[in-house]
């Protein structure tokens, strides 16, 4: 097979931190090549160097046998390298068709009709459930992701970079995407696939390149690298920690009820639901995307407008209609969408860490710089957050480290009840395990936790009770031995177990 892309000795430095050190990467035509590594291993940086977002500090890139210098994403696109980023970077206020064609034509006029016709044809061909004239914001996250891919695909690319394309897709949608990827591969497109889902790598990829701490670990054929070894290579050590994580006290029925809601509903179209959680319990909301699991916990935290229901915390009636009310009752909420709801991008890691605690403390009692520094340093160390300093803007951290910062923010408030919506999305295996461990440790200390994840396996491991949702209603509750993949699927599908 022909090599279309070759990167040799790539180096990249960020103010004092070495992000990439002599990394090689080779992509052949007609292959799907997994780029693997933990948070901060340099995957995103390598891709951004390839697509011209960052200027490289050393090394060479050759594309189709010719040495190239890529100075901007536009240039990358022009020579045939298209990218779909981890966090969707489309314009939500434009239509699907506009998003697919924006910034592409050289001519100054737009043929709207042709644009919409073409867009509709591509959507049809890729069987993406969206209409060309629909506003993008009205599509689900998954569909938005697919539109982004459709845009890249339509640009006749020779190399396609997919950075965590499946992190917000459910199984069905992932399957559809894979079909599309195989299709493209057979047409001779080289695909770089960045993901944290090991399963998916073995489902679809031909070769794997592993990075660690900004350095190349190696390049392997899929057959010569069993799963366990891949994990070991990514983490730099042999370990079987995943098996060690188990919820010990599967059921602590003696715990007092910490939070209790009756008939809770919000404007974000959740049906009124009852829900309670006990001290030291870890429960989960599960269901397909759009089933209302996120909306339910948002209602618990008062993040959306509450339209009804009674809430008791520690057996006392309370009113939770705003996040601050929930926070005062000892609730914490790590939102599903880190970029838009979690981080304050331009603020420093330190400010991001102390934010929630500062708000609880009050407007007129600010932390002094020294106090804030001390708290931030303590949690940066405790959670192993990789950052140049506490003053670094959070936006320049890798996704997993950003998530740890948000985690630290809530741990700092010593919550009695912590809601985690997809805390491990887009995060590498090592950090995932760390977060799961923290959750279980919190539970042992008597904190109750709601844990939501798209990976059922992860929920089975950490939760002692699962609440199953379908079409914005709670349709079942599974505990103990009832909690199996099969049972969950059946409950979601609505078959009597």
């Amino acid at each position, binding site marked *: 097979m022909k090599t279309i892309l070759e990167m040799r000795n790539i180096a990249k430095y960020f103010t004092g931190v070495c992000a990439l050190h002599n990394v090689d990467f080779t992509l052949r035509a007609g292959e799907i090549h997994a780029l693997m590594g933990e948070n901060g291993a340099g995957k995103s940086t390598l891709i951004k160097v390839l697509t011209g977002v960052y200027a490289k500090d050393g090394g060479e890139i050759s594309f189709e046998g010719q040495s190239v210098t890529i100075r901007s994403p536009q240039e990358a696109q022009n020579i045939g390298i298209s990218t779909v980023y981890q966090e969707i970077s489309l314009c939500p206020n434009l239509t699907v068709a506009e998003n697919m064609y924006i910034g592409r034509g050289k001519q100054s006029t737009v043929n709207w009709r042709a644009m919409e016709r073409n867009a509709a044809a591509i959507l049809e061909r890729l069987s993406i459930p969206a209409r060309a004239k629909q506003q993008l914001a009205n599509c689900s996250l998954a569909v938005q992701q697919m539109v982004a891919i459709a845009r890249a695909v339509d640009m006749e690319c020779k190399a396609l970079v997919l950075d965590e394309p499946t992190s917000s897709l459910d199984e069905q949608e992932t399957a559809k995407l894979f079909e599309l990827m195989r299709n493209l591969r057979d047409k001779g497109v080289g695909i770089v696939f960045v993901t944290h889902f090991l399963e998916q790598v073995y489902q679809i990829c031909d070769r794997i390149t592993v990075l660690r701490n900004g350095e190349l670990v190696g390049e392997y054929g899929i057959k010569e690298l069993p799963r366990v070894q891949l994990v070991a290579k990514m983490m730099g050590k042999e370990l079987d920690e995943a098996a060690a994580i188990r919820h010990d006290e599967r059921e602590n029925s003696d715990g007092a009820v910490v939070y209790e809601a009756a008939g809770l509903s919000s404007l974000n179209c959740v049906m009124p639901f009852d829900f309670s959680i006990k001290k030291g319990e870890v429960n989960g909301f599960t269901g397909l995307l759009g089933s209302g699991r996120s909306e339910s916990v948002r209602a618990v935290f008062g993040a959306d407008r509450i339209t009804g229901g009674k809430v008791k915390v520690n057996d006392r009636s309370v009113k939770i209609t705003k*996040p601050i009310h929930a926070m005062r009752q000892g609730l914490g909420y790590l939102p599903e969408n880190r970029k*838009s*709801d*979690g981080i304050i991008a*331009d603020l420093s890691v330190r400010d991001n860490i102390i*934010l929630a605690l500062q*708000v609880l403390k009050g407007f*007129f009692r*600010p*932390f002094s710089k020294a106090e804030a520094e001390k708290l931030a340093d303590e949690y940066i160390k405790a959670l192993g957050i990789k950052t140049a300093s506490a003053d670094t803007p959070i936006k320049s951290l890798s996704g997993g480290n950003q998530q740890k910062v948000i985690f630290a923010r809530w741990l700092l408030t010593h919550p009695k009840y912590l809601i985690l919506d997809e805390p491990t999305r887009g995060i590498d295996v090592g950090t995932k395990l760390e977060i799961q461990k923290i959750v279980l440790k919190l539970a042992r200390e008597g904190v109750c936790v709601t844990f939501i994840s798209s990976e059922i396996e992860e929920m089975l491991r950490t939760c002692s009770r699962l609440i199953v949702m379908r079409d914005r209603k709670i349709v079942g509750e599974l505990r103990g031995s009832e909690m199996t993949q099969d049972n969950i699927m059946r409950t979601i599908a609505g078959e009597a177990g």
Partner: protein
Amino acid sequence: MKKREFSLVHLIVPLLALFLLVIFNLFRDPAFFSVKLLVNNDGNYVLSGNLISILNGASELAIIALGMTIVTAATGGQDISVGAAAAIAGSVFVKILRGGDVSPPLILAAFLACCAVAMLFGAFNGSLVALFRIQPMIATLILFTAGRSIAYWINGGATPTVSGPWIGYLGGFIPGVPIPTPVFIVVICGALFALALKFTALRLYTQAVGINEGSARLNGIDTAWIKTLSFIILGLCVAVAGVVRVCRLGLINHETILLDIEMDAILAVAIGGNALSGGKFSLIGSVVGAYIIQALTTTLYAMKVPSTAVKSYKALVIIALVTIGSPVVKKYAAIWFGKLMKSQPRKEEVA
């Protein structure tokens, strides 16, 4: 240069601009900076010269720029009604003083009343922005349009004068002090802002709201209140600026008082290195920006540029300033600077 701190990096462009203005004036006319001690009409010894008139003349602008910075940071928008609101505030001030003898207690009462009115109008702007989610420029366009008419109505269309020794003290000089009082008022305002930032979480809250409102809300911040608060703070600044201007002139003309100051204030914020889209802010930057604008005006007048042409010359300099401060130029400057540092490590450049 000593330690390179973040705030200093932020201020490079405005400080450089100020520095260049000074150099330019030194070469053009070394006497530009001469400051003399004169006896004024009231028999006081006062300092006089271009430097003093820059410091003095920029007072109102600097005060409003402080408030404008907070509004910009919290809402990612600007208030274009400050001139009109100052006309209202000034009119209220004059209206109260016209009735009685101009004694310090009455001045204080008038000042407090005009603060209250200006803050009320600030709250009006703020709630349009925060509760109804109208874009700040459109929301404040309402008061921009109506403000001077309201001011007209307060004093019945006259251009009333106020006089008295205390008015003179506030707008001019206090006997025995050779520096104009408005300069001290700027210092007091700056100090109050510094205290507010030190003893409240105002900076963290406004920045959080300005950068990511959704996230700020989920962290328990009352985003609507913070936005409204920023407009109320600006209202307070407007009241102070209005009173300073009234005392300076001894009269109020509701049509011309602080005319077009909103544009200069927004410009001061921008020159100060603040993103007009909100988020992180530097108050010192905005104040330096205000003095740059005034220094520019004074320089042009000193060069005998006809007053009708001053604005176009100002525009030329501003084009240069905002381009230098633009992200594109900054990026290239950073690359260039990085190379410089690499070739001669640990060596500070000669200023």
